[in-house]
């Protein structure tokens, strides 16, 4: 009797914890931004990324969307933000930690950062300098333009794909198992 009651209470506690965890995770979102190269290899000199006009680069990761109010606000990816950002540009992979100000606050927070206005991306700010913080090449982006300070230049698409981070299946499996356990315990009572 006491045991079954305890099982039920435990099951409910675990379930509520699972729901709470789910709610907290709902603020974390996946995002993907694509950029199109407008000028690249065809301009004459080779660029660091071996990209040509028409090629696509992608930035993706996760961030806490509580930073946005009505789709407007700034999302920082610097040290301690809990957000993640990866840029896949040609043969190179650039990480948020490679930004020159990833762990240096220059009065405007830690970079990189994305700035949204009514759901549209208006500023993608990151500065990676070859050799600093492990950056494999120069990469500069502000407003919606990105470049390698050389022959490559492109623009980010202001429409960012944002999706909720899926709740791990294990949470639901654990919850249903506990619910079943609670049901069995109640029947035995």
């Amino acid at each position, binding site marked *: 009797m006491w045991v079954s009651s305890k099982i039920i209470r435990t099951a409910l506690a675990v379930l509520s914890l699972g729901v709470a965890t789910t709610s907290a995770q709902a603020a974390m979102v996946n995002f993907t931004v694509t950029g199109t190269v407008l*000028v690249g290899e065809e*301009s004459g000199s080779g660029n660091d990324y071996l990209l040509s006009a028409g090629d696509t680069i992608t930035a993706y990761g996760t961030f806490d969307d509580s930073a946005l109010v009505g789709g407007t606000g700034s999302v920082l990816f610097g040290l301690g933000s809990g957000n993640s950002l990866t840029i896949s540009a040609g043969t190179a992979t650039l990480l948020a930690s490679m930004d020159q*100000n990833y762990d240096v606050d*220059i009065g405007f927070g830690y970079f990189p950062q994305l700035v949204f206005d009514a759901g549209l991306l208006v500023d993608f700010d990151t*500065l990676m300098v070859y050799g600093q913080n492990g950056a494999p090449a*120069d990469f500069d982006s502000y*407003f919606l333009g990105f470049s390698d300070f050389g022959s490559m230049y492109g623009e980010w698409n202001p429409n960012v794909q944002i999706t909720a981070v899926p709740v791990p299946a294990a949470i639901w499996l654990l919850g249903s198992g506990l619910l079943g356990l609670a049901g069995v315990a109640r029947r035995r009572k």
Partner: protein
Amino acid sequence: MKLVKSLIQTLAVAGIVVFAGMTGVSSSAMAMMTPDGETPANEGVCDGLKGATPGLYGLCVAYCEAQDLDTIDKEPPSEKILANYEKKRQAGDPDMPCIQKPECSCVSNAELSAMTADGMGSCNRLITNKLTITDNGPLNFADINTTPGREACRFVDTETSPITVRSQRLADDADSTAAQKAEVCRAAIDAACLAIGQ
């Protein structure tokens, strides 16, 4: 003989007096002119404004030529005249011709003027420390990032073939003038934006 000698002396003195007098007259005439000795309206530095907004040509003559700012900055410029010029200036009118503004390393003042000439330019001042001017017909733009330590400027013109792209990192570690260079670009773009009322 004595008479001849006296005559020569008299003539010499008269010659000196006449020469001195002419020089004096000449100096008086020079004093009536501008420091470079050229009549203001004949110098031509303001000629490009003859077809511009009425009034600008006169203000230009008053500001540039009368003070000879195109050659020697001898007198302090009249800020009031310059203010009147800026007040009267409309989209498409050039800057005061005799003011040599420092140029942004990414985009020249002439390129900025060309962007605003068709009246289709627009500026974005929404982002802190960043300013961009875009000309929508056809697509070309100039922008500046003045964030300390991240200073950079760009100019893209898709009308040229091949497309013109200038992208510079001003915040060079070995160069302590990054902020100044960025400010020059910001001021140049800002002036272009103001010229189109933005």
